[in-house]
């Protein structure tokens, strides 16, 4: 079977991103001196992918390409958008940041592009095989990116931990796929999982789904499969953490949505309860542990565990509000978490030591702009209106309540209060603490631009959430 033109247009964004990766590698090899070309090409590639993804945003009915391997349509496009945004922000943040660690690395941008390709594959997957490969492509890139600052022990350690745990989780994921395949006789997602063929053994299917879910939960960083998250996010270069925690998480959740569809969860109430429990534990553990952190990056890592819990609550809801909420949440989370990590990257010591809370003291004096942006991200992460973070939470909880999981929503909101405490702690130090001194803010126009864009988008989506909600509603 040779791919038709329509197949190719269906994966145009993927082709663009992957192609750009190749070009970047080549350019890096050929024009060693030119440091700006790689990132610029990357940005161009991602932007182009976004423009190709945009027209399909309105297409509600998903159509298949590559014989069902790929699904196109609003869902895929929306996620492509999220991934590209995550990529764009990370690349902007990385420009000149990554230079401080490893000078002149075109591979870095190529790997980001490859990771984005993997993510797109995951979201577009019409078959578990494609999904698996996309996941591995993304993970592999992440392992490398996490260890990219190879001179730093923390980066090494993060890469190793991520790699070992990731590969271990892959084992379970693959086992899950195997069992599902055995039970249903196919890996295609169309009609999944209620179709004839296979062994038709409900327990086999259930066990397979459970393992598959565990693999995904590992990727989203949900408790108890979250242990890698703090160490990796802390050890990895900050811009990479920004990328992993946003695009990576979004991709994993796209997997959740395409595999654990509302229809599946409703027919498997036990599975749904497990997701609910995991969501609740994630919210609690992530937020509670984050309270005691002294490193901003690590705090963000724990908070991302908690956010995984919130988003999972949207999955639990298994209704339009919940699913749309997940999408909205992911977009806003991408913006705010990339922004938050971005701010950290701007404030970090060049020597690679972790940014502590205390170092942020009095930031509003040293750099009012950065402080204000941080405040926006923190309030948004805490879920305070009118920032986009609030609407994500609202939507997700709306779905949860509607689905009868009110207790989960209550856990969620209570934990939001806890989270507000540590998010605000940063604001407190920046604004309410008048100590002079502290680290000067690095001058990185691109990074700053990325953060500003993210903040503006957060406020924009906060005040006019319909811009996004109109799109998410047509994704399913």
């Amino acid at each position: 079977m040779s791919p038709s033109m329509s197949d190719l247009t269906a994966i145009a964004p993927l082709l663009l991103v992957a192609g750009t990766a190749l070009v970047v590698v080549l350019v890096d090899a050929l024009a060693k001196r030119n440091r700006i070309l790689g990132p610029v090409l990357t940005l161009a590639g991602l932007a182009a992918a976004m423009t190709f993804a945009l027209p399909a945003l309105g297409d509600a009915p998903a159509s298949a390409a590559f014989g069902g391997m790929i699904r196109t349509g609003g869902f895929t496009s929306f996620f492509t958008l999220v991934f590209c945004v995550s990529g764009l922000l990370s690349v902007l943040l990385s420009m000149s940041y990554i230079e401080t660690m490893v000078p002149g690395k075109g591979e870095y941008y190529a790997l980001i592009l490859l990771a984005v390709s993997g993510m797109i594959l995951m979201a577009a997957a019409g078959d578990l095989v494609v999904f698996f490969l996309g996941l591995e492509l993304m993970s592999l890139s992440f392992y490398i990116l996490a260890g990219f600052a190879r001179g730093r022990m923390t980066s090494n350690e993060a890469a190793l931990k991520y790699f070992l745990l990731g590969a271990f989780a892959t084992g379970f994921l693959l086992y899950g796929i195997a069992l599902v395949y055995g039970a249903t006789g196919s890996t295609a997602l169309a009609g999944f999982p209620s179709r004839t063929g296979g062994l038709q053994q409900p327990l086999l299917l259930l066990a397979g789904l459970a393992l598959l879910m565990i693999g995904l939960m590992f990727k989203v960083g949900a408790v108890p499969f979250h242990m890698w998250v703090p160490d990796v996010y802390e050890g990895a270069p900050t811009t990479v953490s920004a990328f992993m925690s946003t695009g990576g998480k979004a991709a994993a959740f796209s997997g959740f949505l395409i595999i654990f569809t509302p229809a599946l969860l409703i027919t498997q109430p036990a599975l749904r309860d497990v997701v609910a429990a995991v969501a609740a534990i994630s919210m609690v553990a992530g937020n509670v542990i984050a309270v005691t952190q002294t490193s901003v990056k690590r705090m963000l890592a724990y908070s991302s565990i908690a956010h995984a819990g919130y988003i999972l609550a949207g999955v639990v809801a298994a209704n339009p509000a919940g699913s749309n909420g997940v999408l909205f949440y992911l977009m806003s989370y991408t913006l705010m978490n990339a922004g938050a990590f971005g701010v950290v990257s701007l404030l970090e010591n060049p020597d690679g030591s972790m940014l502590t809370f205390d170092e942020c003291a009095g930031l509003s004096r040293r750099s009012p702009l950065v402080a204000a942006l941080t405040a926006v991200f923190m309030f948004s992460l805490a879920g305070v209106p009118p920032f986009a973070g609030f609407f994500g939470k609202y939507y997700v909880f709306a779905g949860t309540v509607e689905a009868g999981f009110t207790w989960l929503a209550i856990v969620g909101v209570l934990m939001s209060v806890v989270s507000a405490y540590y998010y605000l702690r940063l604001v407190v130090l920046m604004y309410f603490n008048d100590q002079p001194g502290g680290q000067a803010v690095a001058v990185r126009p691109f990074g700053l631009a990325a953060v500003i864009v993210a903040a503006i988008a957060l406020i924009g989506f906060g005040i006019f959430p319909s811009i996004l909600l109109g799109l998410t509603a047509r994704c399913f």
Partner: protein
Amino acid sequence: MILMQLTCCAVLFPLIGFLFNGLIGRKIKNEGIVAAVGCAAVGAGFVVACIGFFRMLGLPPEQRTLTLDLFPWIVAGGFRADVALQLDQLSVVMMLIVTGVGFLIHVYSAGYMHGDPGFWRFFAYLNLFIFSMLTLILADNFLLMFLGWEGVGLCSYLLIGFWYDRKFEKGTTGDAAKKAFIVNRIGDFGFLTGIFLIYVTFGSLRFQTVFTQAAAMTVGTPVLLWITLALFVGATGKSAQIPLFVWLPDAMAGPTPVSALIHAATMVTAGVYMVARCSVLYALAPVSMGVVASVGAATALFAATVGLVQNDIKKVLAYSTISQLGYMFLALGVGAFSAGIFHVMTHAFFKALLFLGSGAVIHAMHDEQDIRRMGGLGKSLPITYRTFLVGTIAIAGIPPLSGFFSKDEILWQAFSRGSWVLWLAGFAAAGLTALYMFRLVALTFQGEPRWEKGVHPHEAPATMTLPLIVLALLSAVGGFAGIPHSLGGGNAFEQWLEPVFAPAAEKLALSLPQVEIAEYVLMGLSVAVALAGWYLARMWYLKRKEIPGLLVRKLPNAYRVLLNKYYVDELYEGAVVKPAVRGSELLLWKGIDVNVIDRVVNGIAQITAAAGRGLRLTQTGVVQSYVLVFLAGVVLIVGWLLVK
């Protein structure tokens, strides 16, 4: 009609005076203008009152109740209270007293307060007081009355604390002022409750509506009992009756004209006025009547005993005031409403006179108030002495001065309508009154001078003596307004007020007063006891001065109890104030607020943080422990799913 507009103006004049003096008085460096404005505002009121009185005389008795609706005050839901005035026989009497005596005291103050840095402020407050008092007595509903009621309390507060930087007894004038306000507030609490009950019962707060409806009710209706008792609580606060009298002696911390005006002549009688105003309600609640009479009699006797041993010239007068107020309530309690009001009037004359006289003494002695350091002042202060003596005779109830008529009326009514116990209390108090008042005169004006060297007492200026003289005249002749039938008078005063109290009288089934032999006997007894008091005072304090000392030695405990006013202040302090303050601080604030509630709130935060500290230790940094947790999760989830 025009009279009501005038009355309205009479109320407003003092308000304007208050605003004028209060806002720009400080800028005017001229005491004359300030005083003139202040006096004129009240004087105008007096003129209006007189006009009103005479116009009213020209009307048939049943048309003598005039009202004027100004504007709605509080309207909410079904509730409505207007700012509206009502002028009737009772109001006009009160108005005459308030503006008349008030005017004299204003004039007096111009001299008394001369040179005080707060001169303007003083007149502003006085005018505000007159305004409030007029509102109180002219209100046509309970709520507006309450406005005046609270207003006079406020002015009392302001004026007691007028010399805010002075010491007073154990504390400061501020303590006294605060005490006055707070004790009054306790009474107001009762008044307010009464108002609520009235509204709930009658659906209105207008006097006319309420009283008309009440007139149709039967005697002994329970709600009326509660209404009247609640109102009476208010009256005990304002009129310094047991148990809320404690503020009045302390109120002497204010300048003496204030004591004369507010704490003797006018404000303290507001309670009497209020009960009299509600005579119908009381008439329907016999139990309340009994309570009023008993409290009045008890207070009269009680305060008189305390007055016996006080050494502060104003304190003696203060307890005397309490005692006399007790008489008034005694009268009200036995249904002799007009007798009570009559005593209000005569008391206003002679007690204002006495206070102003004492003010002149204090003025002369350079703020010395202890009568143990006075004596023989009669020579230096002839006018003061003579007028003071007139007042003393009047209060002692020696005919034919005013006090005799009013007090005798009360005692007779207490006997004939109440019981002999009430009479006996009043009778004893009358004797004591004469005793302590003549003691006061003896120690202050007569005998040997006991003041320190360097003090040169001198007579007060004309602005002060003139009011004394006028008041002395009034004290002397004021009683003739109400010469009882038994003495051949027509009791014009009672007749004047008769229409106001007619509904109550009807309920009480009172017959027209009959002249009886007993009345003459009692009259004679009371005169005798007054004279006995006078005689004793002369004996003990001028002739045989060792007797009081002897008595003190003989009855040390009794003396101490009396000197310390039965330790009521100490009781309140120990039983209410201290526990409240300590309890609030230790139990409520530092206990519940800080240690319980806040600790719970912060505790939740601390528990969360502690949980965080504990949980983060699971993140050991060792990969294999992570894998372990992972695997545990897998086993749990898969196991649970399989079990399901």
